């Protein structure tokens, strides 16, 4: 439950790209995944990556310019919905050979990527990779997709912040549903009642609470409500 909050604490402390890299490695361990990759390209073509692949695979990938044929890169970079690797087109001979080589380099057979459009034409891709059967992977992604979306956007914000992106706003505003959720929590309503009032499930409600807490940098739900009240983000 509080893994997201723990991660947020760790992420908020990162001030250098090295610390960001360490965070990405820890995140991979927390989720017990084979690999985790953050890759950013800004509007002038400048690139930055934090990833857990073996250095010789990264070197090989760059040397061979595999981005040209990598279905994940080709499939994700122009889009913006999360993508399950299985739905990409791996049928070309070059793609299959690439897949074989990636497997030898320690990549798992399953993957999921979150493309992000950032400010001023910046673009990022967060990918998770794992070795397991389809059933286990489906259960992981259905359970963790919301977390992954959230964490992907925070990774991007943090990377932009470390790089000193001047276009970043000072604070993130709460979304309408996050405001509704915190407002109702502030009135003392319990989660079941709130979910009913907002006509959403309790699991969806949890996502809103977690993301509001994340945005506010709050330690727990009560702290998030208190912060939202003091900052005038919600009115009870």
């Amino acid at each position, binding site marked *: 439950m509080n893994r997201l909050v723990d991660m947020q604490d760790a992420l908020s402390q990162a001030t250098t790209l090295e610390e960001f890299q360490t965070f990405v490695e820890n995140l991979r361990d927390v989720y017990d995944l084979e690999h985790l990759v953050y890759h950013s390209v800004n509007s002038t073509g400048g690139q930055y990556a934090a990833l857990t692949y073996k250095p010789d695979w990264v070197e090989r990938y760059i040397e061979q310019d595999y981005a040209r044929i990598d279905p994940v890169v080709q499939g994700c970079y122009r889009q913006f*919905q999360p993508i399950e690797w299985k739905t990409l087109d791996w049928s070309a001979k070059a793609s299959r050979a690439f897949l074989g080589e990636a497997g030898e380099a320690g990549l798992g057979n399953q993957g999921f990527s979150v493309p*992000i459009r950032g400010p001023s034409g910046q673009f990022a891709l967060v990918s998770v990779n794992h070795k397991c059967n389809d059933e286990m992977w489906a259960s992981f992604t259905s359970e963790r997709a919301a977390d992954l979306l959230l964490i992907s*956007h925070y990774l991007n914000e943090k990377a932009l912040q470390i790089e000193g992106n001047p276009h970043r706003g000072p604070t993130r*505003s709460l*979304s309408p549903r996050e405001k509704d959720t915190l407002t109702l929590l502030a009135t003392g309503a319990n989660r079941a009642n709130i979910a009913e009032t907002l006509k959403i499930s309790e699991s*969806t409600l949890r996502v809103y609470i977690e993301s509001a807490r994340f945005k506010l940098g709050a330690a727990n739900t009560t702290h998030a409500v208190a912060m939202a009240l003091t900052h005038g983000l919600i009115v009870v």
Partner: protein
Amino acid sequence: MIRYLYADQLLAFPKLRESMLKDRAVQFHQRLKWEVTIDANGYEQDQYDLLNPLYVIWETAAGLHGGSMRFLPTAGATMLNDFFSHLNGQPVSDDRIWETTRFCISPNAPDGSRVAALLMLAGAQLGVGLGLSHAVGVFDARMIRIYRQLGWPPEVLGTEGKGREEISAGLWEFRPELLAQLATKAGVSKDVAAHWFARAFGLERTMIAA
């Protein structure tokens, strides 16, 4: 049928693309008299078409444009934040809110109100399927009646102008239970909408259990 196509994917369907851009010229330039740019081909395009947006298009049996709308994530550049942020007082930038623009019905569509219903259904299916919380968009006073008739009016964030000049920014909440209601209005089954989505995104189930 409904197609979900990014701009680069739409290039593989030239008839569909060209008829969409011409229909947009008719609706936004000729009818609504918006200050939009029409090129030498008679296509209406703006800078957001260059950002590889996602189009939701109703394709006719002849392979032509029957109606469409356009989506972009609010974490990147959007029309609302670039031109209409005064309507809302603050920019909207959230990973679970996408902007919808250029809601267009072909002048050749025999039943425009049904196409509108189909598009709203396809938009709702998109948001529910991808686990988004809301769509945000700027719309004019004429549209609110259509949204109400379909049972999916937006929450108005702000309004300016009077009468025919009135425009508003609004938020549409994605709720799974909308799908059945919109499907009924559109005259198709909910399963058909799920199929459109699965065919485009290869996902049989929703990304986030709502």
